[in-house]
């Protein structure tokens, strides 16, 4: 892998972290409304997946979507503008935190009904199979989503039709406040794929290189026509489920333990240990991200509100 690629990956992970830290402040100031589900702690998963994909590979995820949005290259300006509900957001301020997408960048959202985007991902994979494209659809979802019927209908269909889809479960140990063990009949989520004859693997979701490697291998198998694959990324969310989560369901010692495994720290240590980057280079990235985010916040805050007539546009395409 090229050095520039490494530095770009580092940049992406730091960017997600800083954008969300600023978003937290903006939320506390009342400038962001609704829900705000932070990705902090899980950055290695989306970053590794996007690093492994080819341009023709679609990616679709749940409401915890700021990471993917920034990974695929949506400028932080647009991400923050969407969070502030501004006309310059990628969804014109109509979607908000949970509904980010950029079709041009093959990022298909941002879906807020748990599990509902899994059948949709199967349909997009079907479209690629139907039209002879060699694209693979990467579909991310939480551990909680594997308990809803949509997951099972989608996995079954994907195998029956041999669809080119990479199912990625981000097992961050909780669905809101409910631990995996309390909600799922099996706590090793990937076992569920066995019931559908879908090959599967687990990966350390705090290690961006491991995610990239595992996803890359899976994508090539799928691209070769081997059908769907399920990857379980073992990860952890460092913050509450959304804003204002009292976190009664876990000990702060557990959170602390995981924070020692910070995906950005792990990657930084890897880059320096392997001689792929030196500390000053990485510090320079951190500084440039600070400036980038600062400018993006300014852009978002000074952007216009959607025009009143926007209320009625886009209800129908025609």
């Amino acid at each position, binding site marked *: 892998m090229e050095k520039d690629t490494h530095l770009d990956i580092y940049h992406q992970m730091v960017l997600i972290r800083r954008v969300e830290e600023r978003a937290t402040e903006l939320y506390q100031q009342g400038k962001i409304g609704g829900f705000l589900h932070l990705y902090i702690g899980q950055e290695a998963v989306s970053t590794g997946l996007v690093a492994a994909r080819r341009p023709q590979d679609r990616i679709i995820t749940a409401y915890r979507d700021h990471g993917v949005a920034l990974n695929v290259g949506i400028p932080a300006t647009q991400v923050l503008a969407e969070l502030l509900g501004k006309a310059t957001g*990628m*969804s014109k301020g109509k979607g908000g935190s949970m509904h980010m997408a*950029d079709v041009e960048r093959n990022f298909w959202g941002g879906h807020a009904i748990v599990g509902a985007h899994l059948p949709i991902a199967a349909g997009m994979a079907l479209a690629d199979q*139907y039209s002879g494209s060699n694209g693979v659809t990467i579909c991310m979802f939480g551990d909680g989503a594997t308990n809803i019927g949509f997951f099972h209908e*989608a996995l079954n269909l994907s195998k*029956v039709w041999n669809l080119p889809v990479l199912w990625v479960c981000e097992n961050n140990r909780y669905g809101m406040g409910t631990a995996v063990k309390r909600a799922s009949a099996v706590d090793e989520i990937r076992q569920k794929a066995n019931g559908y004859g879908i090959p599967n693997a687990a990966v350390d979701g705090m290690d961006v290189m491991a995610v990239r490697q595992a996803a890359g291998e899976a994508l090539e198998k799928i691209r070769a026509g081997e059908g769907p694959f399920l990857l379980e990324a073992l990860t952890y969310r460092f913050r509450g489920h959304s804003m204002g989560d009292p976190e009664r369901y876990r000990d702060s010692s557990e959170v602390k333990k995981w924070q020692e495994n910070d995906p950005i720290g792990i990657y930084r240590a890897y880059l320096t240990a392997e001689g792929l980057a030196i500390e000053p280079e990485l510090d320079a990235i951190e500084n440039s991200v600070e400036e980038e985010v600062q400018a993006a916040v300014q852009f978002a805050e000074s952007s216009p509100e959607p025009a009143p007539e926007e209320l009625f546009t886009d209800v129908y395409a025609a």
Partner: protein
Amino acid sequence: MPRITMRQAISQALWEEMERDERVFIMGEEVGIWGGTYAVTKGFYDHFGEKRVRDTPIAEAAIVGAGIGAAMAGLRPISELMTVNFAFSAMDHIVNEAAKMHYMFGGQMRVPLVIRTVGGGGRQLGATHSQTPDAVFAHFPGLKVVAPGTPYDAKGLLKAAIRSDDPVFFIEHATMYQVRGEVPEEEYLVPIGESKIQRPGRDATIITYSKGLDWSLKAADQLAKEGIEVEVVDLRTLRPLDMEPVVASVQRTNRAVVVEEGWRSYGVGAEVAARIQEEAFDYLDAPVLRVAQKEVPLPYNRTLEQSALPQVADVVRAVKEVL
């Protein structure tokens, strides 16, 4: 003009659109080898092959959800739900995904999907298999809802639905597949979102659609023998609702009755009556009446079932009441 059945008209629409556009395909339970549970896609599997006529597992959320995804990715899927009663298992995808996708992402995504399904009671199938919940689906902005009452409209509207860039919920009626009507040989489309006068008259206006059209036209025939001429307006599309011909008609006749098969409360009749009083209050000489299904889950017993469903006699009675 040839007189063909509703089944043939719908089948022709699907066939012609599949011949015309490679992106159009059908998926659903028993649409392929079986030929469709209402025999609408008979012969399709052999002609178009399993890629374009896809038998699915019994998984309604996946049938609609995969249709949405394929549509977003540029195909023109037709997701068939065996009957509308099973659409409830796909409700999330119809309501939360198909109807919202275009708006919620600021116009970035399109869902040119047709969900074809079959509704209606009267066949002694019991409460779970006899519903006419059309109004439920018509409640959601972002979805288009079509329910034709003649073979001509069924064919033209289905072709328009397949070419539409928006998701269309297309409701056929289980007891109307044998209804015959004139359908031209040449190609034509019927635009979505236009109501139509199916029978002109001066004394009162009946507003109806789907199976209600059949009852209303029969009632109009009976009333004509007594010298009462009713105008029958067929909504054809429930969303977007075209009130223009309805209002114009009521302005001429000053009396209105809404006829539908679904339950009265919160139904199509409730909406149309409200719109009439908003848009033509000064023209009304009588309250707007509704003929609709009794407020019970439909029973199996034939006599009980028929007494719960609207009858031609109910329509005749309602018209006389507003005169």
